[in-house]
């Protein structure tokens, strides 16, 4: 049975993700965590995991539940899993954040809170991997974009397992020299597998298909895309292979990570040329806001790569890792997420509301659900704020940093309001909207959409 249905829980994932982003940005405006606190302080860890799990991972999971079936042209297997996974991830995240808060005596919680949160996260992301993995497995042989997702899911598995190991060590449940050494040396591996493998690699794969689809660019499988897949996978394998060195505090760790950085940069460079080719070869002259706003994210990816090279060359990577992570997480991953959400929310809402009556009565177009001229400046403001906030981190201006994060928060709120207006059909002319029920902002329809 070919074809894909609407993913029922995707909008719920998106709503939870946006709430986490707004909370994280608010905390930073208030001066919580880095740069006010140390980069490895529990407060900073709260921020980092709120962004990485709450915002970026929930966003990615929600998107994948919809787009893996589209990528492989088959329905999602394990349809009952998405809500279970969401509940487990949210509970796990709360427990994890509470555990971090306990580490810095912000609140009194038993030390087991950290590994408990980690276990819930393993269960939640395990359910995600099970559902998506079965769907992908059943669709072999896979097209290139889907293979990126497979590698991304493997990186996710590595990330959560490393994370849970850290949690066990921190709570005193797991001891010994090797475990301690892994905690002291392995954090970069955890971060690289998460941000670089799971999120970036998956986002790259999905972006190939989405950009081609909505800009009408040819979707032929390029040799260069194979190169991105191969080099990127190699970089991630190198990172994973560094784990034993981290456990034994071996001298090979730095060398492996440097090799991973080199192959990772190669993958990014070829990916950038692929993206430029997709934009150049598009048949659609006037591109929509989601594709315009995504350019900001690609610029942030390029800026991150250049900053990484500069920091490596000047030996400042350790001291400026916060700025690099900031522009990578909020500019590249967050920017791409917000830009694509602008299209995805409108598209899914349009399908949910109007597909059943297409041809039977007059319906609005997808573009009637959005108000691009009003939304566009907010994306500009968002990227500008991320750029300036990163600069402030580079030159140690903590107060100015908070100011620009405030601007970023304001822009995010404005973009979220546009999401809401598009979801609730508020931009649709009243005469076209008449007779249609407004969908729930973030819960699935009561009746299953065919």
């Amino acid at each position, binding site marked *: *049975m*070919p*074809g*894909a*249905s609407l993913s029922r829980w995707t909008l719920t994932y998106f709503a939870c993700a946006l709430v986490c982003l707004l909370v994280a940005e608010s905390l930073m405006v208030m001066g919580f965590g880095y740069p006010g606190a140390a980069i490895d302080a529990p407060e900073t860890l709260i921020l980092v995991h709120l962004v990485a799990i709450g915002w970026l991972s929930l966003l990615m999971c929600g998107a994948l539940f919809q787009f893996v*079936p*589209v990528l492989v*042209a088959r329905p999602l297997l394990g349809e009952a899993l998405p809500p279970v996974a969401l509940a487990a991830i949210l509970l796990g995240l709360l427990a994890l954040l509470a555990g971090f808060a306990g580490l810095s005596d912000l609140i009194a919680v038993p030390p087991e809170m950290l590994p408990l949160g980690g276990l819930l996260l393993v269960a939640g992301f395990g359910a995600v991997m099970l559902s998506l993995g079965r769907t992908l497995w059943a669709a072999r042989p896979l097209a290139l974009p889907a293979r990126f997702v497979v590698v991304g899911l493997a990186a996710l598995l590595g990330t959560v397992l490393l994370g849970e190991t850290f949690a066990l060590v921190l709570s005193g449940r797991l001891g010994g020299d090797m475990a301690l050494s892994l905690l002291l040396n392995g954090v970069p591996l955890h971060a690289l597998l998460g941000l670089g493998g799971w999120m970036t690699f998956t986002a790259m794969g999905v972006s190939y298909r989405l950009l081609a*689809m*909505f*800009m*009408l660019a*040819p*979707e*032929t499988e390029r040799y260069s895309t194979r190169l991105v897949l191969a080099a990127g996978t190699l970089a991630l394998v190198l990172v994973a292979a560094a784990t034993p060195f981290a456990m034994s505090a071996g001298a090979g760790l730095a060398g492996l990570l440097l090799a991973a950085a080199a192959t990772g940069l190669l993958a990014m460079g070829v990916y950038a040329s692929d993206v430029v080719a997709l934009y150049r070869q598009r*048949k*659609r002259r006037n591109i929509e806001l989601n594709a315009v706003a995504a350019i900001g994210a690609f610029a942030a990816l390029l800026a991150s790569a250049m900053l990484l090279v500069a920091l490596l060359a000047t030996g400042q990577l350790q001291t400026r890792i916060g700025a690099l992570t900031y522009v990578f997480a909020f500019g590249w991953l967050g920017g791409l997420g917000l830009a694509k959400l602008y299209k995805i929310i409108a*598209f899914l809402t*349009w*399908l949910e509301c109007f*597909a*059943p009556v*297409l*041809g*039977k009565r007059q*319906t609005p*177009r*997808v573009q009637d659900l959005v108000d691009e001229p009003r939304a566009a400046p907010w994306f500009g403001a968002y990227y500008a704020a991320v750029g300036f906030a990163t600069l402030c981190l580079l030159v140690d201006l903590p107060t100015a940093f908070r100011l620009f994060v405030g601007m970023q928060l304001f822009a995010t709120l404005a973009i979220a309001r546009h999401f809401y207006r598009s979801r609730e059909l508020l931009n649709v002319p009243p005469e076209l909207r008449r007779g249609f029920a407004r969908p729930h902002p973030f819960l699935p329809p009561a009746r299953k*959409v*065919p």
Partner: protein
Amino acid sequence: MNDLELDVRPILRHGGEPFGAIMGAVARLAKGQRLKLYATFKPEPLFHVMASQGFKNEAIPLEDGEWMVIFAPIDGERVAAVESVESQAASPETWPDPAHYLDCAELDPPEPMVRILAQLEIMADGEVLFALLGREPIFLFPELRARGHAWAGDFDETGEAYRLMIRAGGRS
């Protein structure tokens, strides 16, 4: 066996749509017979339609930009996978020839879906629509199923165009 000749140049010169006439001629073809078609331009969209029906083509340019195309049946042509609701599980070979044609190859989603569903609404039950798309219309299929239409579709040899035949079914 003589080729069946069809000249659609007069229809085209009067601004008409020759698709019905061509499909009518295809329906009259005897087993193994070839169709010799005359047109005022190279009818490339038709090549996809005919390929989906198991014909290869040979296009020969004439004077003044006109073309003669010979469609010859291919033996043992692969039959596209058929999807349909239970009661209509008939193979597309038994369907009537397409009476309507939509070229959606240059449209971005969801416009092909919008046009195809709108076209199906004004078609009589049992009539067949042929649509050419740039990609597999994944969100269209559940809607076709819900409305009781039967369809068969596949990618062309290059993988760049998706060919879709839909037989209008009973209204649900």
